[in-house]
């Protein structure tokens, strides 16, 4: 078996996060060497990057730095291809980022982007889509095998070190049950790992449609070029409001059963605003703070943009659920192996995930010598060794602090990421120029 396989498989070893592997760095380097040697012949963009950077082989972790893709690589297709339904061209684009051939996908009669994603999935290309603030979607390919490995990883990492999924809980996910999006995929994985069959509840079975995101983007484009009419914009906004009202009604219904079963060890995931709605209902019913079973697993997250919440919403949610299990992990759509947080509020590294801490510009690899006592701040990059379907190397916009110490304060082996992750500000926050576009002003009327 290859070193890479060994590392990935070791997630199943009992106490994988508890035992130090003195050779981990050398093994990770060897695994990176392996996976690059294989992928460079398979993925067009990786080959191009390697040629430009003059990297033939991974001899040190530094060689990986120029090979990391930014998230923008996964949305580098021309939007007009989607607007004009040129799905064959989209497949051609997807090919440059994928290992498996995408020409096995039949795009005859594809009616929209959701259709296209479905066809890709039928062809074994499990595409996840994200919608950035620009309105242009990213599309990330992976294989069915990658999906299964992701689920397997989640079975160990989600809940660690407090609880492990045993398929024995009532689960409530305050979102859709279907859709090509990583949050939904995570819910599905957690449902499979934690849920008692037949007792898993999603807010809605209305699938998340990427076309809705794209439609909003297309409307924004037409607003920018002045061809959208006020009536169209109004209709669009009304539709969004109606959908929100439907979701609120569904949440009301689900709230009743969540509250009714609060003394059971349920699993509950929702966005901050949804938790606040549950609290509101609980107050009406006279349910006090801290009245949930301590075995409940509760997580909250999501953006709060455009939602009016009291300033202390996090404290209110914490107080309401009280002493429940609150597992947290650091991950992202592009990553298969999320990093769970320990009791000491630090994120731990799975053996199959290579961390690459970079300087702010993303050009130089940082190490323990770049900060006081081996605690170093930088831009987070990584190579996720799981992926068979695409290149797992990514540079993020996240500013993280890594403690390179061999031991975490929790006693387990390091290195660890501190719980102070923020975003790198856009270059030149306070740089003022007279050049630019007004797209964001047009956008804001639809998103706020």
């Amino acid at each position, binding site marked *: 078996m290859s070193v890479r396989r060994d590392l990935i498989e070791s997630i199943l070893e009992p106490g994988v996060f508890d035992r130090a592997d003195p050779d981990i760095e050398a093994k990770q380097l060897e695994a990176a060497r392996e996976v690059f040697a294989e992928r460079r012949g398979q993925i*067009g*963009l990786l080959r*191009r*990057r390697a040629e*430009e950077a003059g990297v033939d082989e991974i001899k040190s972790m530094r060689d990986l730095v120029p090979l990391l*893709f*930014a998230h*923008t*690589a996964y*949305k*580098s*297709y*021309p*939007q*007009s291809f989607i607007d004009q339904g040129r799905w064959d*061209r989209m497949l*051609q*684009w997807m*090919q*440059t980022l994928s290992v498996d051939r995408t020409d096995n996908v039949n795009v005859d009669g594809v009616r929209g982007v959701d259709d296209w994603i479905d066809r890709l999935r039928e062809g074994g290309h499990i595409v996840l889509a994200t919608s950035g603030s620009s309105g*242009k979607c990213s599309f990330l390919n992976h294989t069915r095998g990658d999906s299964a490995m992701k689920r397997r990883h989640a079975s160990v990492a989600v809940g660690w070190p407090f609880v492990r999924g045993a398929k024995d809980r009532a689960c409530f996910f305050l979102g859709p049950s279907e859709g090509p999006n990583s949050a939904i995929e995570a819910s599905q994985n957690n449902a499979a790992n934690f849920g008692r069959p037949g007792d898993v509840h999603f807010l809605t079975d209305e699938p998340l449609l990427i076309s809705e995101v794209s439609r909003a983007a297309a409307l924004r484009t037409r607003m*920018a*070029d*002045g*061809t959208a009419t006020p009536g169209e914009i109004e209709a669009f906004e009304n539709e969004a409001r109606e959908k929100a009202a439907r979701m609120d009604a569904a949440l009301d219904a689900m709230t009743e059963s969540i509250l009714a079963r609060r003394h059971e060890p349920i699993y509950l995931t929702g966005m901050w605003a949804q938790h606040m709605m549950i609290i509101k209902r609980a107050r009406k019913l006279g349910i006090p703070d801290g009245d949930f079973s301590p075995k409940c697993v509760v997580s909250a997250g999501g953006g709060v943009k455009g939602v009016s919440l009291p300033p202390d919403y996090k404290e209110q949610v914490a107080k309401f659920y009280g002493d429940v299990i609150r597992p947290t992990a650091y991950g992202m759509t592009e990553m298969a192996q999320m990093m769970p947080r320990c009791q000491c509020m630090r994120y731990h590294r799975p053996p199959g995930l290579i961390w690459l801490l970079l300087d702010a510009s*993303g050009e130089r690899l940082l*190490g323990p*010598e*770049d900060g006081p006592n081996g605690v170093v701040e930088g831009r987070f990059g990584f190579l996720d060794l799981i992926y068979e379907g695409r290149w797992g190397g990514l*540079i993020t916009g996240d500013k993280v602090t890594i403690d390179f110490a061999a031991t975490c304060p929790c006693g387990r082996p390091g290195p660890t990421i501190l719980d102070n992750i923020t975003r790198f500000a856009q270059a*030149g*926050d*306070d*740089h*003022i*120029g*007279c*050049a*630019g*576009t*007004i*797209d*964001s*002003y047009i956008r804001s009327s639809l998103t706020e």
Partner: protein
Amino acid sequence: MNAPAPVPPLPVPHVVKGTTIFGNEQDYGRFATPKLNLDSMVWPRSEPAPAADVPVAEIIDVLVQTGERLTRDPDGALAEALERSVKSNPLPRDVLERSYASLGRIFNRAMMEFQIEQELGGADLIDGWREVATTSGRPARIRAFPTRLVHIIAGNAPGVAAQSVIRGALTKCVNLFKLPSNDLYSATAILRALSAVAPGHPIARSFSAAYWRGGDAAIEGMLFRPQFFDKIVAWGGESTIRGALKYVGPGFELVAFDPKTSISMIGREAFASEETLDEVATRGAFDATVMNQQACTSSRFQFIEGTVEQVDRYCAKLQAKLGEERPTSSSTPIPLPSNIRDELDGLRAFEDDYRVFGGYEGRGLVVRSDAPVDFYPDNKIVNVVRVADLRDAVRHVSVATQTVGVYPAARRTELRDALCSAGTQRVVALGLAQPESGLPHDGFYPLHRFVRWVTDEGGNN
């Protein structure tokens, strides 16, 4: 691996009502400024603006002398500002050197007189009251009255600071400049020269310049009030305008130099001969590289009539010329932002539809396509878009389209009304994207917007 040695923060002086203030109490990491004294940043409303009664002719004299001093730079203050700008401004050294060398020439007497004539309607209106004949016969006089301005200036060209000083001075306004972090030195260098040629002069006392972090509510929330200022003159990007909008209300008005994009339109006449095509590419490159393509007037999209083969020839010529040195452009390569590299790599999958000319080394790059690219071409990148007819390109124009350069020049007449109807503010012959003083900017006359138009009505008995 060695950690880089810590670099001491660059000192950034402030100017308070004509007096230069040195200090480094406020550390911003890369640079440090004196501590901000908010009380000294406002001019009490109980007193008229210091220069209100100074004849504009005298102000122009002072400005001309300021320009001469900037050109001579007898004490090396401008040279010092240049050296520090080189360390803190994203523009390359040679562009900054040439911009600083030409700063003095902006303070040109004829140009300033033209501005007053064009933008206000005459010096008498700013110096005193002009009689107007009303239709009812009511005696009336009008005057362009000085106001209190806080300027959020742009830092993508040192000329912005110079123009802002000139505009603020010609209108006799009181002016507080908020310095941008990409140009921490030009405004103060100009104001120091102004104070040097006219120490204590009312016009020198009409200016302050300081840095604070844009959007700092503790400072902006205090200063941006109608009690202290009448107008906020805001240049540029989204965060600036959004920041300013928070404070705008009755008595506190926004004068916005909005973010703008500029384009070119090139007719099939460009392919008349190889020499013509060369000439057109030279002009196209000139317009695309104004301030290394950091200016609002710099062309980013060029719509062109021609066959794929013809347009590719234009693209190749244009690409070669983007990297050449010009007065406001450098031959120093500019690193390609990674997001644009990602976009280009994506487009390379479609080499028939999207052809990329030039490499990623930052010497200029052209993308030829049949529809505008999704990204914002920047750092010497031009998207050349093939159209059947230049009129088809008008649909890509919006109120954010500032300058449209047209070739051949004669085709401006067929296009200009449609362009302006779609939002364009400026139609020029290709090659003339560099702005001209005294003409409207972004669809308005700045001097006209800076002043308050007041009236005095009725006879004397």
